[in-house]
């Protein structure tokens, strides 16, 4: 049994007028029992509310469309995160979630890989430690750090920054998970631990400026770490700025028709729409096209909110598959994104839909790198 009264207060649910905009915009609701409005209503009505029968809570991607659209400022996704927290607290942790959580605590990453392997991606790149003196710290997402499929992205970024003569460094083996997805699966205790630990490490290393490879890290540092006095940028912002400041010379053409998937945590949640596009449009040879559903109307790839590790109830076709079809409608040959989750889900989807020869999923960093 839940204390709905507290949840109502905590998540400001009294503001809700039951207009349904949250459910109407939810990318998951059409194929899952997930209905944020009804969820809120049940909270408002109070009384008996059994979490256990609500497996669909694990379907939420925390893309935050519900909250962005809400005319009364209610954040349904926060409520869902809170409910997941209740679930976790009750000890009934979904089986597929146990290993990532444990690994994050022990190894600083949810991929269940050793802490000491974190910098393997940078082997041979001679990346400095930020403590050695750098104007900015590069923060690698666990995915980028460990998953070979997305490791090329930080590598590309390193080359880009060097090309612009930017002095940067990483936290080295002190770098660990930002906690964004940990918080989103409801493990707030672990998140708080990571936050405090990370902040301590940033402070120790004298980090004043942080550039993240993932929008999820960007979001969590920018919005959920309090105000630690650290300027946070997503790398697309950094690169866009450097291009605007004319810090690059592009030696090559990147001849392709490119469209772009807005990562929810970059676009909808933080309003960073223009910089990634500015970067792509600045590249010689790139013909940039928009998908119909872009920017504020973009669609989640279904990679966030811990969906990378969760089963949920949602067994229907993944949204990423739809996205491939939509990208192909534009005539694009390259589907760009700026998020490791997006990259992975979209890459899977390209394979699943049998379009690996028609459409290439690339991170913006990779594309920029290809043009330098």
């Amino acid at each position, binding site marked *: 049994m839940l204390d709905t009264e507290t949840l109502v207060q905590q998540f400001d649910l009294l503001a809700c007028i039951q*207009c349904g905009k949250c459910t109407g915009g939810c990318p998951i609701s059409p194929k899952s029992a997930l*209905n944020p*409005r009804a969820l809120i209503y049940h909270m408002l009505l109070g009384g008996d509310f059994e979490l256990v029968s609500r497996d669909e809570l694990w379907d939420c991607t925390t893309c935050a469309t519900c909250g962005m659209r809400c005319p009364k400022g209610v954040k349904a996704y926060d409520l869902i995160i809170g409910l997941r927290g209740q679930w976790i607290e009750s000890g009934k942790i979904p089986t597929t979630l146990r290993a990532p959580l444990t690994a994050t605590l022990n190894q600083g990453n949810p991929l269940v890989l050793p802490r000491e392997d974190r910098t393997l991606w940078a082997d041979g790149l001679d990346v400095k430690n930020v403590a050695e003196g750098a104007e900015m710290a590069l923060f690698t997402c666990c995915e980028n750090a460990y998953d070979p499929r997305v490791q090329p992205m930080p590598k590309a970024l390193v080359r880009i920054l060097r090309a612009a003569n930017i002095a940067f460094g990483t936290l080295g083996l002190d770098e660990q998970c930002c906690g964004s997805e940990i918080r989103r699966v409801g493990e707030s205790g672990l998140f708080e631990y990571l936050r405090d630990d990370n902040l301590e490490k940033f402070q120790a290393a004298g980090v004043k400026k942080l550039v993240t490879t993932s929008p999820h890290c960007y979001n969590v540092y920018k919005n959920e770490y309090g105000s630690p006095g650290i300027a946070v940028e997503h790398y697309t912002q950094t690169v866009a700025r450097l291009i605007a400041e004319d810090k690059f010379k592009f030696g090559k053409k990147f001849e392709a028709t490119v469209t772009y998937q807005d990562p929810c945590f970059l676009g909808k949640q933080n309003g960073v729409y223009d910089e990634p596009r500015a970067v792509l449009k600045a590249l010689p040879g790139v013909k940039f096209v928009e998908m119909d559903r872009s920017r504020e109307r973009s669609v989640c790839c279904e990679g966030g909110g811990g969906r990378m590790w969760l089963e949920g109830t949602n067994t229907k076709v993944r949204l990423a598959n739809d996205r491939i079809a939509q990208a192909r409608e534009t005539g694009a040959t390259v589907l760009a994104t700026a998020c490791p989750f997006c990259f992975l889900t979209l890459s899977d989807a390209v394979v699943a839909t049998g379009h690996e020869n028609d459409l290439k999923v690339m991170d913006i960093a990779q594309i920029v790198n290809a043009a330098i």
Partner: protein
Amino acid sequence: MTQSALVIGGGIAGIQTALDVADAGFKVYLVEKEPSVGGRMSQLDKTFPTLDCSACILTPKMVDVARHPNIELLTYSEVTDVQGAAGDFRVTVKKKPRYVDMTKCTGCGSCAEACRLKGKIVDPFNAALGKRSAIYVPFPQAVPLKYTVDPTQCVYLTRGVCGKTFRCKDACKAGAIDFTQQEQCVELNVGAIVTATGFDPFNATLKPELGYGVYPNVITSLQFERLSSASGPTAGKILLGGKEPREVVFIQCVGSRDATTGNLYCSRVCCMITAKHAHLVKDKIHDARVTVFYADIRAFGKGFEEFYDRVRAEGVQYRRGYVSEIFKRGEKLVIRSEDTLLGKPIETPADLVVLSTGLVPRPETQPLANLLGLGNSADGFLAEAHAKLRPVDTAIDGVYLAGCAQGPKDIPDTVAHAKAAASAAIVRLRRSEQWTVISDQFTLSTTH
């Protein structure tokens, strides 16, 4: 004591205030920044719930205002300075050059026919759905019916040269066109000022998820008015790109009741505007499927609920749930929402989507408010002296509010509010003498 009043804004509120104050025998200066009086109401097709043709009921009032011996109309003019206090305001009004001699222009329209830019300039009167020339009257029933050169568009005024010869000047048989006209300032001395500067429709591009500006078949309610109007760009036919929509969707509360836009308030008129539009679609395209998405239907005025009943009876579907987003699938738009009464997310196909946009304060009212020393309410509209008891008075003695400058209102409420402002102004103009007891002047006879 100055026996005259200034009314700023020539929409229905300003017109009504001016007429009432003038009818009471006072001189009224009516200042309108556009070339014609008429305001927003002149853009409307029909009015709810009676379906009166808006122009048909407004035009006589516009004509009355122009004809009234006590009213001096200052169109295409703006207030630039206000000094003094109640009873003795000194107001500077800037008369913008029309580049047309009002005394000579017959309103024949030959100049607009001849203009090089004929049919090329986006027509704001038609809510950007139509095109006009650089020399123009805003609409056919304009008062005064005198042409005006748009200085931001005219080839001559923007580039210094317009071919070998001015086509408009050649075309004008009355010799009315005069590019030497300069801005003029007039000084007015008035006892009371009524601010009736109206509202703007909400800028729907601020709700990007609804696709306005992206899809040509997503339009605003003001655009629908022009589409439906016999004097509009489609001569009253509901046509988009030459095609008649089969499935029409109306979306409520676009820019109202919405913290994401900062407009927490209800715009008061949109529910009924949509009901009217839904009726008009049904009236013009009998078999059209019309759906209205809403959260609360606010049909509160006289005859409104009855009209809402009528529209539902005509087969318009009301589905409870705000629309979350719009995208395209093939030729159709897809409207994503939840039907909150079914508890199910739904997708509704549409050929035409009409956004029922709310009312917002006009940005250009703010400098005027500053000149007058007026404050704003939390919603950004001009603040009245007391929310309950003094809806037309302001914190400044002698300055009153009329119509939507104070907050969203429908036409009858605007007219009532404007007349109330007129009453306040009349009272202010008549004040100053020492009143004596006259309440006993009635008694004709008293019997027990």
